[in-house]
């Protein structure tokens, strides 16, 4: 029973880490309608920046981390400047395809700047588990979960209630309409990438805390994908629930199915769950429904 509880809680918390990673992805989609294939690279970018500012330069964490956020935001803007500013008005497909190029390109940039070797990631959050009777709960996961919930609530409010947020929502609806209303799509896309990069850095901190970092860590981008899809690409609040579903399913599979079947059921299960749920709710749990008119 205790085991079951631990698996449940831990699965739920890991799901929130996925949700946090997926959030960087949804934010970019939600403010620019661009589906970012290079999300995993953004997380790695955040990871390297944190490493660089904290371990690399030897700054204390409370100085280094804000600096890393600032650099991430800057990189987001640079990405928009170089890759997207000229594409405003082109088909959305083109913009999405640029992110495919970005995926390969960023990888190369990381290799040039930081090399390919695996390096330690600083321990920003204490690793020591929280012990409640027989329950062991990872403190870093717990903090990560809290961060995820706070970020989700905050961003939901931002996108639905504030003028700036509504502006971006309008861009996500339709670039042309947004432009006709005097909204700068470029600026919105730039902000999206800025926010996406910063969120990915937060995700990197929670995800990589005390572990290791190399350019290959970008796999997390695809691992977090089912969470984003389940929530619905437009829904930030929905990520929490989707994270719970995916995390718990995966946790249970890792605990009970993997040893039984002798294989990595837990790695495919999120995708299977995703397809099954999408079949009944084709826009995820909370995504925008397609309004078809004839």
């Amino acid at each position, binding site marked *: 029973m205790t085991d079951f509880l631990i698996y449940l809680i831990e699965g739920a918390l890991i799901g929130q880490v996925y949700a946090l990673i997926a959030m960087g992805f949804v934010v970019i989609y939600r403010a620019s309608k661009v589906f970012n294939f290079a999300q995993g690279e953004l997380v790695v970018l955040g990871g390297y920046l944190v490493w660089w500012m904290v371990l690399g330069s030897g700054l204390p964490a409370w100085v280094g981390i804000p600096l890393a956020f600032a650099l991430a935001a800057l990189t987001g803007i640079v990405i928009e400047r170089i890759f997207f500013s000229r594409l*405003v008005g082109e088909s959305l497909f083109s913009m999405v395809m640029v992110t495919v190029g970005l995926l390969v390109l960023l990888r190369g940039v990381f290799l040039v700047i930081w090399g390919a070797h695996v390096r330690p990631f600083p321990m920003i959050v204490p690793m020591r588990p929280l012990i409640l009777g027989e329950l062991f709960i990872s403190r870093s996961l717990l903090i990560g979960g809290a961060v995820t919930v706070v970020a989700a609530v905050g961003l939901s409010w931002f996108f*639905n209630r504030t003028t700036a947020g509504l*502006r971006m929502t*309008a861009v996500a609806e339709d670039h042309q309409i947004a432009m006709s*209303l*005097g909204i*700068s799509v470029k600026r919105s896309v730039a902000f999206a990438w800025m926010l996406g990069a910063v969120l990915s850095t937060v995700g990197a901190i929670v995800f990589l805390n005390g572990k290791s970092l190399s350019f290959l860590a970008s796999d997390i981008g695809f691992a977090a994908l089912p969470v984003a899809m389940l929530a619905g690409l437009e829904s930030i609040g929905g990520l929490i629930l989707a994270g719970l579903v995916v995390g718990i399913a995966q946790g249970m599979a890792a605990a009970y199915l993997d040893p039984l079947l002798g294989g990595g059921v837990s790695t495919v299960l999120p995708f299977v769950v995703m397809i099954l749920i999408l079949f009944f709710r084709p826009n995820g749990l909370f995504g*925008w*429904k397609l309004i078809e008119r004839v």
Partner: protein
Amino acid sequence: MLELNNVEAIYSEVILVLKGISLHVPEGGCVALLGSNGAGKSTTLKCISGLIRPEDGAVTGGNITFLGKRIDALPAEAVVRRGLVHVMEGRKVLEHMTTQQNLMVGGHMHRDAARRRQNLERVYALMPPLANLRQRTAGYLSGGEQQMLVIGRALMAEPTMMLIDEPSLGLAPMLVEEIYAILAELRAHGLTLLLVEQNTRAALEIADHGYVMENGRIVMEGSAAQLKSNEDIREFYLGLDQSGERKSYRDIKHYKRRKRWLG
């Protein structure tokens, strides 16, 4: 107020759609742009508002001035900030947002929340049906409601001039009246209008001046009264026969008299 001088525009680097358009809209005036489909009316509006560039088009010649300043090189959002809004055809609401969110987005450039509120109330007062639909998802509104919403949304920007494309398209006769009543009221409050419209009758009711476009050129221009009495306009745009009676669609002959513009 708005001046187009010999404007040329192309799409996809090769297709020339506007071949030297010149027109003039006086302050507080209402000008109608008439012409058949594909004549380049919508493109003209897009050239003015800057929305042509995102469609792989470009203004390649001539100049456009608004309030005495060149605007043909400005990005679309800068044009809006100068007080010139473009209401596109096809009732382009932001589908997944509520009525109120749509309106709030329209007034996004005003930092002052109180002012936005005030504008919002003004729009609701002008178009009472919208007030009852505040929390409805815009994509599910009816055609007439959506047309009101896009006009209301444009008003939230506090424009001095509005370009409006086919406001009566696909609307029931009563709604056409309603929409034109709203436009007339806006005019009365001093809003300058440039109107693209197929419904020539309705357009010439409200406009004081009109231009007729064919094949990317302006082929005729005149005051509303002049246009209304022009024989070609009467036949081809108002559907009247020589005696001023409405022709029946049943009586159309299978050979046709073609337009002969002298412009």
